[in-house]
């Protein structure tokens, strides 16, 4: 079961043109900021929105083919969708919700009940089948929604921000469960999310969509290590500095020079991890070749460290321990010196 799709949608200010291919058993994460067109893409794949151009096929079945005016409505596609808010039908019991897709396909009552029961057990909701959705917790509701989407054994599973409505602790648990079920799922999965952690944890491959276009694609690891846009870099917690390689230095497009450990040439990205940035009150003497005067513009606690946003000739993000933060007497507007070792700057072609 392979999804092949090119989806074109023109709608108001949104101009979406995205190509995707998802293999059997593969999980593809579509990562992007709000308004990038992710949800529109998902609605097109589900059949809820006819595209303005392109083609969507799963194996040999053509679901959308705009040039020849083919459009298969949602209810005739073999899809399962899990929405952000679970959206369990409030007037049905949990078991009836799970069995809904079987009922519309004419499966007999006894069989339906057995299948729903089995899936409830699989997602850990044993014994809760007779409850109304209103009496489930957020995590339980999302599990029931997953069971409801999978019970019909769809060729394509679509997950629309499935974890973002959950609180942090529940998210952790449910994420692990979703991961387990995705591993067991034979069809193709498309996961739409703006949370890089979901993408990294659940997906085999990631495509990053910004303003309706794919800006980067690759394994989660690649995307994380070598971001190609500010958006991805910010998600990965990196400072992304585009420039031109000149031997062991990168002349930045925005001005300034970064010393690097290896020879480069042509357009490159230099990426700096926050933990590689050290801050000093006075200009440090000695080895670091990258020393810049910067000004603190923002600080947010981040676990045991404080993430500091720094403005200057070279904008950076630095993680300092809470202790160091206090010791340096850092307040917004404070003038400090930032240093980065050349060996800790990642350089890759643009």
């Amino acid at each position, binding site marked *: 079961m392979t999804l092949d799709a090119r989806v074109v949608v023109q709608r108001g200010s949104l101009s979406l043109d995205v190509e995707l291919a998802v293999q059997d058993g593969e999980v593809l994460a579509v990562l992007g900021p709000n308004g990038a067109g992710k949800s529109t893409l998902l609605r097109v794949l589900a*059949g809820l929105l006819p595209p303005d151009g392109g083609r969507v096929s799963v194996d040999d079945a053509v679901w959308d083919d705009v040039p020849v005016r083919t459009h298969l409505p949602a*209810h005739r596609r073999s899809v*399962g*969708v899990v929405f952000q808010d679970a959206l369990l*039908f409030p007037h049905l019991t949990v078991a009836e919700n799970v069995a*809904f*897709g079987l*009922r*519309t396909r004419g499966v007999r009552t006894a069989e339906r009940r057995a299948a729903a029961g089995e899936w409830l057990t699989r997602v850990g909701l044993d014994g809760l089948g007779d409850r109304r959705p209103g009496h489930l917790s957020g995590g339980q509701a999302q599990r029931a929604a997953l069971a409801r989407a999978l019970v019909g054994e769809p060729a394509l599973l679509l997950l629309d921000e499935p974890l973002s409505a959950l609180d942090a602790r529940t998210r952790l648990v449910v994420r692990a469960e979703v991961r387990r079920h995705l591993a067991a799922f034979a069809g193709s999965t498309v996961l739409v999310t703006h949370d890089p952690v979901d993408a990294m944890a659940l997906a085999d491959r990631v495509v990053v969509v910004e303003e309706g276009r794919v800006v980067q694609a690759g394994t989660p690891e690649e995307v994380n290590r070598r971001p190609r846009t500010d958006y991805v870099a910010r998600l990965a917690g990196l400072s992304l500095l585009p420039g031109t390689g000149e031997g062991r230095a990168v002349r930045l497009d925005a001005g300034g020079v970064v010393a690097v450990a290896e020879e480069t040439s042509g357009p490159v990205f230099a990426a700096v991890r926050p933990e590689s940035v050290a801050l000093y009150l006075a200009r440090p003497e000695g080895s670091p070749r990258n020393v810049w005067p910067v000004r603190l513009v923002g600080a947010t606690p981040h676990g045991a460290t404080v993430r500091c946003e720094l403005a200057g000739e070279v904008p950076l993000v630095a993680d300092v321990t809470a202790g160091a933060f206090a010791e340096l007497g850092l307040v917004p507007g404070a003038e400090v010196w930032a240093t980065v070792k050349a060996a800790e700057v990642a350089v890759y072609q643009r």
Partner: protein
Amino acid sequence: MSRSREGAGIPPPLLVPAALGVAFLVLPLVGLLVRTPWSSLGRQLTAPGVGEALRLSIVSASLATLLSLLLGVPLAWVLARSRIRGRSVLRALVTVPLVLPPVVGGVALFLVLGRQGIVGSWLDEAFGVTIPFTTTAVVLAETFVAMPFLVVSVEGALRAADARFEDVAATLGADRWTTFRRVTLPLVAPGVAAGAVLCWARALGEFGATITFAGNFPGTTQTMPLAVYLALQRDPEAAIVLSLVLLAVSLATLLLLRDRWLGRAQG
């Protein structure tokens, strides 16, 4: 002046008009009770025609509600969900009976369904069926006046309902009709119930369109409001008694239905 009292209190600019509003609506009912001839109540209630008019009122209002449900719920769906052209014009048209004097509505029904009417004349010739002056005419007149209440109420419920549930149903293999039956209708059921009660109450009190289109004949077309109006001309006491009966029946029905949905909504 404690803080909690201030928080729970009603601001005087709202309290005074609200109290006046209650008085304005309730005092006439009190007036009815005060002027009720309690001593002759039994005799008045058992007078011939009272039971008949009451039965006819309840039956015809219920049939009108049923007809309104059959036609009005699909109509509300079209207004709330479909993307057909001229939907706003359509909405304005079907809510016209809300502002039309019912007597004019009755005349309009004559022009369509009367013996000489566009449809009525054809019915007469083809099937020998004439509608005016029959109980059917009462039901039709009440439906004409009361159905917009149901349509407006159900349309509001449909607009307030989360359309994403319908998307979910579609991705689970439900076509639009199945989605309507299994998802949309159950979701808006409280709105449909509220609309049906409103519709029934309006139909029960219908006077103008009924007396115009259906006429006034005891047992066939004389509903309670008609009986009240005519009694008022000769015997105001009888009119008060009849009004009281109508009031009691409608209050009892509304309270009963209200309890039932509240019970269901909580359970």
